[in-house]
């Protein structure tokens, strides 16, 4: 799989679901399955890594379901108990804070025309001067103007789920690469229920 454009990014994930399948998907890294995604009837999603780790992903963020928002917590694959859950990633309105830096999924990088986003990949950007340190604390005025913010591209996402949703990441996001890739798949391009063939 070759990246369509941009500078080389060292980490590549691909999330692929079966045609017409909505409830499960596989995550590949370097063409090797590294995790599976399983949607539950509750609406939450479980992510199981090949190494035995597991996470629960929920769109209920800060007390309610929100669009383009997801919270990832560790969980035990046996008990699914949330009592020992540890939050490792919170995305709210495309924004997430990681290692003291704010990032935005689906951002237009600085110096690019807006119409570049009408087709092709979307970007994960680092917002260096962003005035908030927690996505939950962002005020309503800033939230209403998020599309004006431009950042430094540190990731790239593209592709429909059933064809393979590809996520390229810089090293600074490597430690959350797997849950971030699964989140990008769930938030932006889940498998399609109905696939039309030409």
């Amino acid at each position, binding site marked *: 799989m070759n990246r369509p454009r941009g500078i080389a990014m060292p980490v590549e994930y691909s999330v692929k679901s079966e045609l017409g399948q909505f409830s499960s998907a596989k995550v590949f890294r370097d063409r090797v399955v590294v995790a599976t995604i399983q949607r539950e009837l509750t609406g939450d999603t479980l992510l199981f890594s090949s190494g035995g780790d597991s996470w629960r992903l929920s769109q209920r963020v800060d007390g309610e379901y929100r669009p383009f928002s997801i919270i990832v917590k560790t969980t035990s694959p046996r008990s699914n108990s949330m009592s020992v859950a540890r939050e490792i990633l919170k995305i709210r309105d495309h924004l997430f804070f990681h290692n003291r830096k704010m990032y935005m999924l689906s951002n237009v990088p600085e110096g690019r025309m807006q*119409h570049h986003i009408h087709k092709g990949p979307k970007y994960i950007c680092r917002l260096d001067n*962003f005035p908030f340190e927690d996505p939950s604390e962002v005020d309503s005025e800033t939230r209403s*103007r998020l599309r004006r913010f*431009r950042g430094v591209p540190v990731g790239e996402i593209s592709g429909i789920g059933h064809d393979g949703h590809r996520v390229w990441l810089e090293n600074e996001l490597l430690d959350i690469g797997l849950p971030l890739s699964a989140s990008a798949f769930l938030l932006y391009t889940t498998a399609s*229920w109905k696939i039309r063939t030409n």
Partner: protein
Amino acid sequence: MSTNVSPKRVGPFPFPKSDPSKRVKDFSEVQQPYTMEEVQDEAKRCLQCGTPVCIDACPVQMDVRGMCEAVSRGDLSTAYKRIRDTNPLLGVTARCCPQLQSLCEDACVMRWDGDPISIGMIQRFVADWEQRESKQPSPEQSKEQTGKRVGIIGGGPAGLAAAELLWRYGHAVTIYEQFGNLGGTAQYGIPDFHLPKDVLSYEIQSISELGVATRTGVIVGSGISLSQLLSDEVDAVLITAGSKDPVKLDTPGIDSQGIYDCYAFLEAVYGKSVVSYVANPTCILGEKILVIGGGDSALDGARTAKRLTQGSVTVVYRRTEKEMPSDPIMVQEAREEGVEFIFLADPAEYVSSGKRLTKVRMNTMELGPPDQTGRRSPQIVKGKDFFMDCDSVLLAVGRGPNSFLQLKEGLKTGRKNSIAVDDHFKTSMRGVFAAGDVVTGETLVVKAMGSGREAAQRVHEYLMNIEDQHISLYETYFVRRSYEMMQADLEGALPPP
């Protein structure tokens, strides 16, 4: 390229347009509609995603997936019912939303491998069909009237969307509007070539016909105070007064004759009708017009001035085209109509002959380090200033929230005198809520509507004393809009919100 999707839009990207050489001479609509055959073909391209990101991206949670499913079968009545449930201004938002700018079409998964579905064009077709060919039933109200009364201050998109939802909850709703007509920015600030007034008037009338009362020409805070309103007429107030306050500049010569606030200019042209403005123009534009700013209003002002004068119109923006906040589609349309652009320039001084503006001394700008938004900030290049001759200037450098009421009544304020609200849209005065541009500053029509609907839900919960039972509108529709529900045709069994 995927083998499973049909990648191309039916019509030319982004939509069929009228001939620029003809449209620049009148105020007829630029965007041209699809045919029934085209709209069905386009709707069939929808993948019917399990998680409909198009709905996630819509501030009013419009059922895009359900619309495409119904339209693809030729069932416009069902399509209308599905999208009208959460969006009372269908024809307006179909035309005014920049769908490719972080909204439904930008979210559409089809954009990964091809062109996103033309959601706005399909929506427009359904709305126009309902308006012109087949009037459909209005959304239902809750069976039980609550006996509660709500006053909404400001009849713009946020107020209208809130009014309809509060009415559906069973409350008696009155809109208090300062001007003679409802519609706010959609009525007074959006050109006819984007949004024909008959579309807006029809949708406002549909809301009024539900039973929403309207009192126009009323300025709350002047003739009647907020506390009087609360004690005498209503049980709760929602302020949706919009954005109005122009940004004040101190550029030398700013008071010269021939310099106009672009928003006031648009209001003058479109407030009553273009015909009446042409008969009695209030702005002397001349033949060389400069428009300062890079947002949608700057382009609306430039294209309106071009149509009125057929003269030379130039948009001057202090950053480059890459940083322009306006919709790139509008920039392209403006260029087609002969509007010119100058980037990396900013007025340093307005020069007059007598009191009348004759030219502008411009600073040449360059891009420096990124500011808080991540965009590189413009900085003056010393010794590179230049002059531009002009007869008039339209200033479109942003508007702040309409600050009249909060300053008059002593409501707690936030940035730029916006009304400060908590997460429940409550202001510092008990029983008073606020939403839309008066809280967030100037934003999109559909975002103001979304804010208005969310606030309306909070007002309802406050009045019924059920604030601890809050479930967000997004979650409500997240659950209700299940694919199974749609396929089983069970939506009709759903109660009003």
